[in-house]
C-alpha cells in the first residue's frame, strides 16, 4: 500500500484529509509538528509527504529543507500545502525544496491528481 505522510497541525483538517486519503487506499502516517514530520519521514519512509507550512516549533519550510537535506529522505516528493495566500509562499516552498505546491482549502480531486502524478496511477 502506498504510504503518505500528512503533516498538519489543524486537527479537523488532519482528520478530514487523512480519512479521505485512507478511503482512496493510501496508508496515512500523521505528524502534527515540523519536528515530528522530520522524525516520521525518517522512520516511516513514506512514498510522499503532504506538508502544511505554518506549523508549531519547526515550520514547514524548515522541515522540508531538513527532509530534503538528509540522504534517506531526500528523494521523497513533498507537496507543500498552505492557507497563506500572502507573499511569495509558492516560491519560498519551492526554494525550501518542495516538489509541488497547493493552496488550502484543498481541492481534493486536484490534490489527488498531483499525488498520482508523483506516485504513478497504479497502486504499488
Amino acid at each position, binding site marked *: 500500500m502506498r504510504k503518505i505522510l500528512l503533516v498538519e497541525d*489543524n486537527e*479537523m*483538517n488532519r482528520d*478530514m*484529509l487523512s*480519512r*479521505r486519503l485512507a*478511503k482512496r487506499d493510501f496508508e496515512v502516517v500523521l505528524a502534527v509538528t515540523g519536528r515530528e514530520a522530520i522524525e516520521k519521514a525518517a522512520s516511516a519512509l513514506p512514498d510522499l509527504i503532504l506538508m502544511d507550512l*505554518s506549523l508549531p*516549533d519547526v515550520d514547514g519550510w524548515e522541515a522540508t529543507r531538513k527532509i530534503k*537535506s538528509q540522504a534517506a529522505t531526500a528523494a521523497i516528493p513533498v507537496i507543500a500545502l498552505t*492557507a*497563506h*495566500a*500572502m*507573499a*511569495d509562499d*509558492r*516560491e519560498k516552498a519551492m526554494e525550501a525544496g518542495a516538489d509541488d505546491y497547493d493552496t*488550502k*482549502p*484543498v481541492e*481534493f480531486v486536484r490534490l489527488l491528481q498531483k499525488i498520482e502524478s508523483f506516485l504513478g496511477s497504479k497502486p504499488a
Partner: protein
Amino acid sequence: MDAIRQLMLHNQELREEVRTAREAAEITARLVVKQFDETERVLELFKSANAQRQAVLDAASRISIIAADRHGKITLLNRGAERMLGYSAKEVLGKRTPLDFHLAEEIKASCEKFNGIAGGPAGGIDLFLYYAQHYLSEEHEWTYVRKDGTPIPVSMSVTGIYTSEKELTGFLCAAMDITQRKRQEESLREAMVAAESANRTKSTFLANMSHELRTPLNAIIGYSEMLEEEAEDLELKSFVADLRKIRTAGKYLLALINDVLDLSKIEAGKADLFIEPFPIESMIREVIATISPLIEKKTNRLELSIAGKLGNLTADLTRTRQILFNLLSNATKFTEKGTITVEAFPKSSPAGERIVFKVRDTGIGMTNDQLSRIFEPFIQADASTTKQFGGTGLGLAISRTFCQMMGGEITVESEPGKGSTFTVELPREVKWKQAAGGSARRVEGANVHQKAAGKNGPNTVLAIDDDPAVHELLTNYLRKEGLEVVCAGSGEEGLRLARKLKPMAITLDIIMPGMDGWAVLAALKADPETASIPVVIITIEENRDLGFTLGASDYLVKPISRVQLFDTLRKYRQGRAAGRVLVVEDETATRDLMVRFIRKEGWDVVEAGNGREALDQIAERKPDLIFLDLMMPVMDGFEFIKELRAHREYRSIPVVVVTAKDLTPEERQWLNGGVYRVFRKGSFSREELLQQAREIILREVKPAV
C-alpha cells in the same frame, strides 16, 4: 603823426585781442555751463537708479536681503529683513554682523562639517565667505533668530560681492521664510507615517483574517465533500443534494475571501506575479472547462474562435486564468439563453506583439453611465444587480489591476439590451519589471533587491549629482572597492539611467538645478521598475526624516568620508546572502525572534536549542557566525565554547555571546579569550546586534560578485 598812427594801430590790435579773449571766455563759459548741466543730469540719473535699487530691495518685502563687508559689518538691510528680523536698518547698519541673526550652534555645526578640508572656514564670518565662494548662491536651510528671540526657518543663499578686479569685498545673504513649507512637510510626513502604519495594520489584519477564515473553511468544504461521496455510496440521494449546497456555499465564501485578499494585496503593493511561459490555447480551454457548468446552467451557448498563431504567452498563468475566468463568469451572470463568444488572436503593436482576448455576450448590457464605473472596486453596474446577480463587485477591479501589472489593459464596449464585449490585451512577453507591485515598496531584504537588479546592476552604483567634483570623488572611492560607478549630472538623466541600468544602489544629491533630489527620489520610488533600488542621499542639507519618509535607504550629510560611504553602500552589495548564522538559544520565543530578524538580512539561519545540537549543526555545515546563549540545558554555552576550541577547524568561527547572565570577572575573562563580543540581553538594540553581525559576516564571507 607817426606816433599817433602807431598808437592807433596798437589800440586796434589790443581791441582785437580783447575781443578774441572775450569770445574765448564766452565759449568757455558756455562749455562750463554745458558741462555743469551734463553733470547734473548724470547725478539725477544716478539718484534715480539708486532709488530704483532701493525700491527693488524694499519691494522684496518677503525676502530678507542683508549685505556685509569682508569683516561682516552690515552695509545694507532691506525692508524685508527689517520685517523678518524685527530690527530696523538704523540699528544694525555698521554695528552688527549677520552672525547676530543666526543660531550660534548652527554656525558652529556648519563649520565643523568642513573640518579637515583645506581652506575650510575657521568659524564665524569665514563660513559665509566660504559659502559665497564655493556654493555660488546655492540655497541652504538655516535658522534666523528674530530680535525677540523667535527662531524662523529660512532658505538662504550667500552670494559674493566682488570688485572689478575680482576681489571679494563682501557678501549678500538673501533669505526666504520657509515656516509654511516646513509646516507642510511636517504634516505631510505625519500623514504619510500614519497612512503607512494604517495600511500595514490593515494588510496584517487581512492576512491573518484570511488564514483564520480559510482554515475552518477548509474543514467545511472538505467534510461536506467527503460526506457527499459517502452519501452517494450509500445512495442517500436527499443528503447528497443538501451536502452539495453546503459545499457550494463554502466555495462561494472562499472565492469571496480570495477576492478581498487579492484586492488588499494589490492595495498594499504586495501582489506578486509569477512570470512563466504557457501555451495560450490550452489555458483558454482549461478555463472554459471550469466555467462550462455555469454556462450550461443558464442555457447559454459558448463559442471559441482562435485566429492566427497563438503559441505561448509569457505571463502570470494563474492571474491570466483568473482574468479570463472573471470575464466569463461575468458574462454568464448577465446572460441567459444567449451566446458567449471567446476570441483570441495575436496583434502587432509599436511596443511589440500583444495577445488579445475578447469575451462577448448577448446579455443585458450596460448604459454609458454604468460603463464608466464598472472597473471601480466594490461597484457593480447597478447596486441592485448585487442583489439580483450576486458577486462582490471586485472581479473586474482585480482583473484590471492584474492586466496593468502585466503591462496590458482591459476595455469594455456595451449596449443596453444587446450585450457587452470585454477586451484584454497583454504583451506576449510580460517583463519581470512590469510585474513589480502595484505601488512602490521599500526594499526589505537582499532577495527583493536581487530580483530587481538587472544584468548591469549588481555591481553598479549610480551617482546623481550636478557637481562633477562629486562624481570624481565617488568614482575614486568606489572603484577601489571594485564597484562600477555611473554618473548622472541631473535628476532627469539620473532617472533615465536608473531605469536603464538597474544599479545595485543610487547616491542622490538633493540640491540640484532643475529637478531636485526630492523630486528624483519620489519619481524613483513611484516607478515599479526602480522602486526597489536602494537610494542613499548624500547632501549638505539635514533633513533625514523627509528623506526616509520619501523612501531613502540611507542619509549621509556632506562632507562624507570614504569609510562612511563604503560602509553604507556595501550593505546593498550582492552576495552577502551567502552568510550562514547559527543561533544557539534554548528559549524558543527569543530564538524565533532572532532567527526572524537575522533572516530578514538575507542570511541563512540555522538554529539549535543547546550546545549539543549546535555542534551537530556545525558538523553538518560550518556557519560563518554563531550567536550563543550561555545558560542552556544539556550543554551550556561555556561547555560549547570549550568543545569548539577543541576542534581545530571550528576555532576560527566567530562567536557572539548574547546572555542574560551576570558574568563574574573570571567568566568574563575566560570568555574574552574565545568570543568576539558579549551582548547583555535587554541592553542592546536589534540594530547593534545586526551591525555587529554584518561586520563579521562581511569579513568572513567574500561577496560573491
